[in-house]
C-alpha cells in the first residue's frame, strides 16, 4: 500500500513539474521570452543568490563546528600524536584562509560582475606577473608544508632499537576478531605461521619453538603501560585488515604474508582520558579499518592504558601459551625436520626475519 502511494506521489510530482514547466513557458512566450534565454531579471536574481549561498555555506560550516566540535577525537593519547596534531593544526591554519578567500572571491565576482548590457567585459587574457605570483606562492607554501610534514613522518616512522627496551605486542587479525600476543618472560616471540594453525591454535604458533612457550595472548582487550615505547607487529590470517587506534594517531595495515610494524609511546592512561573527556565510560579501541567482510564494522578490541605496576600485575595474571595449549608429544618428535623446513620458507618470505629484528 505504502509503495503504491509512493509511486502515485512520484507520478503526480512529475505531472506537476511538467504542468509548471508548460505554464512558465506560456507565460514566457506571452512576454516574448523563451524557455532557455536567461532574462536580465533572472540573471540578477541568480547573481543575488551567489552571496546568499556563500553566507549560507559558511554558516553551515560554522554550525557544524559549534555543534560537533566536541565530538572530534580528544587530545592525542600518544607522544607522537601530539606532533601530528600540531602539523594538522598548522595545515588547517594554512588552508582555511585559502578556502575562505577563494570562496569569497568566487561568489563576490559572480555577484558583482553579473550581466549588464551597458557594460563591457574586460578583455584580459593573460598576465605573466599574476600567473608567476600564483604559481610561486602555492609552491612556497607547499614546500614548507612538505618539509614540515616529512620531518614529522620520519620521526613517527622511526624504528625503535633494542635500547628503547620497548614493550612488544603482536596484533593478529582475522575475520572478524583481534588477538594480541605478548612475548612473555624471554621477550622473544615464538615462530608462527598459517601452516601450524590447528584446533584452538588459531594463531598458528609453532608449538615446538620454545621461544613461544611463554608467549601470552589475549582477546577482547589488551593492556599497555603508560609512557613506555610500544613496538607493534601486525599479522593477518586471511585477508587484509588494518589496525586503527585513532586515539593514539596510529594505523597500520595487517597484510597476509607480511609482518608490518608501528610503534608509539602511550602518554595517557585510560583513567586520565576518562577525566579529559568527562566520560567515565570512555575506552580506547582498536578498530579494523580495511574492508574485510560482513562483520568488518564490528571487529574491535579494547585497549587499556595503565601504570606500569598495574600493567605488570595484569600481564603476570595471563596464562602462557604452554599452559593454554599444552604440548603434543607427537609434534615434539618431528621437531628437527619440520623446523628446518619451516625456517627456510619463512626466511624466504621475510616473515620470521622481520619478527625477530628486536630479538637479536
Amino acid at each position, binding site marked *: 500500500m505504502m509503495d503504491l502511494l509512493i509511486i502515485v506521489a512520484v507520478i503526480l510530482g512529475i505531472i506537476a513539474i511538467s504542468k509548471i514547466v508548460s505554464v512558465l513557458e506560456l507565460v514566457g512566450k506571452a512576454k516574448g521570452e523563451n524557455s532557455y534565454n536567461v532574462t536580465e531579471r533572472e540573471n540578477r536574481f541568480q547573481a543575488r543568490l551567489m552571496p546568499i549561498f556563500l553566507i549560507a555555506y559558511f554558516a553551515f560550516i560554522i554550525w557544524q563546528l559549534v555543534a560537533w566540535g566536541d565530538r572530534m577525537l580528544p587530545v592525542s593519547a600518544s607522544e607522537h600524536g601530539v606532533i601530528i596534531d600540531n602539523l594538522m593544526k598548522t595545515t588547517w591554519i594554512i588552508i582555511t584562509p585559502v578556502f575562505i578567500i577563494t570562496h569569497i572571491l568566487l561568489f563576490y*565576482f559572480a555577484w558583482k560582475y553579473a550581466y549588464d548590457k551597458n557594460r563591457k567585459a574586460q578583455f584580459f587574457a593573460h598576465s605573466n606577473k599574476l600567473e608567476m605570483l600564483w604559481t610561486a606562492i602555492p609552491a612556497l607554501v607547499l614546500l614548507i608544508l612538505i618539509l614540515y610534514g616529512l620531518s614529522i613522518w620520519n620521526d*613517527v616512522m622511526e624504528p625503535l632499537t633494542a635500547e628503547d627496551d620497548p614493550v612488544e605486542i603482536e596484533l593478529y587479525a582475522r575475520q572478524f576478531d583481534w588477538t594480541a600476543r605478548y612475548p612473555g618472560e624471554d621477550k622473544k616471540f615464538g615462530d608462527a605461521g598459517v601452516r601450524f594453525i590447528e584446533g584452538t591454535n588459531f594463531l598458528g604458533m609453532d608449538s615446538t619453538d620454545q621461544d613461544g612457550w611463554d608467549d601470552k595472548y589475549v582477546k577482547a582487550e589488551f593492556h599497555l603501560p603508560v609512557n613506555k615505547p610500544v613496538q607493534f607487529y601486525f599479522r593477518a590470517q586471511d585477508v587484509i585488515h588494518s589496525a586503527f587506534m585513532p586515539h593514539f594517531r596510529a594505523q597500520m595495515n595487517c597484510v597476509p604474508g607480511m609482518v608490518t610494524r608501528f610503534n608509539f609511546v602511550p602518554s595517557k592512561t585510560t583513567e586520565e582520558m576518562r577525566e579529559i573527556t568527562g566520560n567515565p565510560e570512555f575506552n580506547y579501541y582498536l578498530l579494523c579499518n580495511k574492508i574485510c567482510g560482513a562483520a568488518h564494522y564490528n571487529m574491535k578490541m579494547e585497549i587499556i592504558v595503565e601504570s606500569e605496576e598495574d600493567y605488570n600485575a595484569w600481564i603476570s595474571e595471563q596464562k602462557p601459551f604452554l599452559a593454554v595449549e599444552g604440548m603434543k608429544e607427537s609434534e615434539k618428535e618431528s621437531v628437527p625436520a619440520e623446523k628446518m623446513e619451516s625456517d627456510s620458507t619463512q626466511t624466504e618470505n621475510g616473515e620470521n626475519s622481520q619478527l625477530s629484528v628486536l630479538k637479536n
Partner: protein
Amino acid sequence: MSATAHHHEDKDFLFKYIFSTDHKMIAKQFFLTGSLMGLIGMLMSTIFRLQLGYPGESFAFLEPILGSWAPDGILSPDKYLALVTIHGTIMVFFLLTAGLSGTFSNLLIPLQLGARDMASGFMNLLSYWFFFLSSCVMIASLFVEGGPASGGWTIYPPLSALPQAMPGSGMGMTLWIISMAIFIVSSLLGSLNYIVTVFNLRTKGMTMTRMPLTIWAFLITAVLGVLSFPVLFSAVLLLFFDRSFGTSFYLSDIYIAGSALEVDGGSPVLYEHLFWFLGHPEVYIILLPALGITSEVVATNSRKPIFGYRAMIGSILAIAFISFLVWGHHMFITGMNPFLGAVFTFTTLLVAIPSAVKVFNYLTTLWKGNIKFTPAMLFAIGLVSTFITGGLTGIILGDSALDINVHDTYFVVGHFHIVMGLSGTFGMISGIYHWFPKLFGRMLDKNLGFLHFWTTIISAYGVFFPMHFLGLAGVPRRYYANTEFPIFDNMYDINELITVFAIMAAASQLFFLFNVFYSIFKGPIAPQNPWRSTTLEWTAPVKHIHGNWPGEIPEVHRWPYDYSKVDDNGEFIGGDDFVPQTVPLYNGEEDASQH
C-alpha cells in the same frame, strides 16, 4: 572522408540509431547509457545511506526491490558492502569515465576541431558497444549467486581473490573482472581514437594553440587513459589467474575457512601498487574533462577570454605528468617502506600547484566579466567551489604523517566525493546544459536548471561536508553501522542528517531527468548559436548530418576566446561581444593567442 560524407542519409534504423559510426550518435549513446548507470549508482547510494542513517531500522519498501538482500526491509551487511562496491565502480568508471569522456570527447572533438568524424568510426562504434557490454555484465553481476563484488571498488586481494572470504568474491567477482576487462578495451579504443583525431584531423588553421581547452583536456585525458588502463588490465588479469588458475601473485600465507591455502610468495601490496597506478591517474581522467568543460563554459558565459590560456594548458600537462608519480599516497600505511611514503608525499603535494593555478585563473576569468547565469554556468561555478573545497582537504590526506589517522575514514570519503565526485558530475552536468542543443538539437528548460542547481549544490554539500567531521572523529568508511563502538554512539544524528541530504540530492536529480527527457522530445528547437559562443561546433547545422558540415569545413583564423575584444576606440571588434573562430583577423587586430 568528405567524399563519403553524403550518401549516408538514407540508412535504416538499425545503422542510424544502434550501430552508428557517427560520433554524434555515439556521444548520445554514451550519454544515455552512462547516465542510466549513474542513476543506478545514485539509487544504490540512497539505499545504503538509509542503513547508515537509520541502522537496523526496517524499511518495508526495500524488501520488494531488494528481495533477499534486505530481509525484513533491513539491508544485510553483506549486501551493504555489495552496494558500496558497485556504487563506487559505477560512479568512477561507468558514469565519470565512460559517461563523461564518452559523451563529450565524442561530441566535441570532431565538432570543435572541424573534423567530419572521428579518425575511425568503426573503432568508435566498437568502443561504445564494448562499453555497453561491460555495463550489462556489471549489472548482470548483481543477480548471480552470492551477489556482486563486495570488496570495495578497489577490490583488494585476498578478500577479492578468495571466494571463501565473502559471498561477493565468487561469481560476482569473476563478472566484475570480466566487465572491467571489457571496459578497458572500450576505454582504450575510445582514447586512441580521440588522440589520433586530435593530432590528425584538425581543420585548416586549427593549430594546437587554437584548440579550445575542452579539447586539450580530452586529449590529455585520453593519453592518461592509454597509459594507465593497461596497468589495471594486468592487475585484474593476475587477479583472475590467482582466482582461477591457482597462481599466487597476490597471495601468501593464508588460512581461511578452516584450511591453510597452498599459496606462497605473493603480495597483496603488489596489487595495490598496480591498482593505484591506474587509480590515481583515474582521478584526473575524471577531473580533466570536467575542468575542460568548465573552462569553456566559464569563458563563454563571462563573455571574457579564459585567463591564462597557456598556463591552463601547462597546468593540464603538469597535473597529468604528476598524476603518474603519486599513486603511493593511497598506500602510506600498507606496510610500504616509509621512505617511499616520503617520496609520495612530496610528489602528491606538488599537484596542488597546477591545481591552484587553475582555480586562480577561473577566478580571474570571472573578474570584470559580464556574467550570464545559465544553468551550465551555475554548475561551472559550483565546480570551482567543490574543486577548492575538496582540493584543500587533499593537502591533509596527501601528507603521509596526517594520513595515518584519517586514512580510510569518512574524511577520505568526504574529500574524494567533493573533489572528484561532485566536480566530475558538476562538470558533466554543466556540459549537458551547455551542449544539449548540439546533442539533441533542442533546448533544456532554464527554470528547471536553476532549481536543479540550487537543490543539488545545497544537498551535495549537506551530504559530504559533515563527513569530514565523522572522519576527524575516527569513524571508518565501509562500516555497515556505527553502532558497535561506544565512541561513535554520538554520531547518529550526523549520519541521519547526511542521509536526509542524500535523499534530497537524489530527488533533486528528478528535475534534471525530467528536463532531459522532456526536452529531447518537446524542448524548443535550438537556435544556431544559443550561447553566442566562438567555437566551431556552433557553426555546424543544428540538425545532425553525417559529416557535420554540409559544404566545406570552416577554416579557423583565431583562438577560441575572443570574447568582448575591443579595438583602440573601445568598440567591440566585429561589432559584437564575441568573434567566432571562423572570422579572419581584422586589419591591425592582434592575435590574442600569441602570448
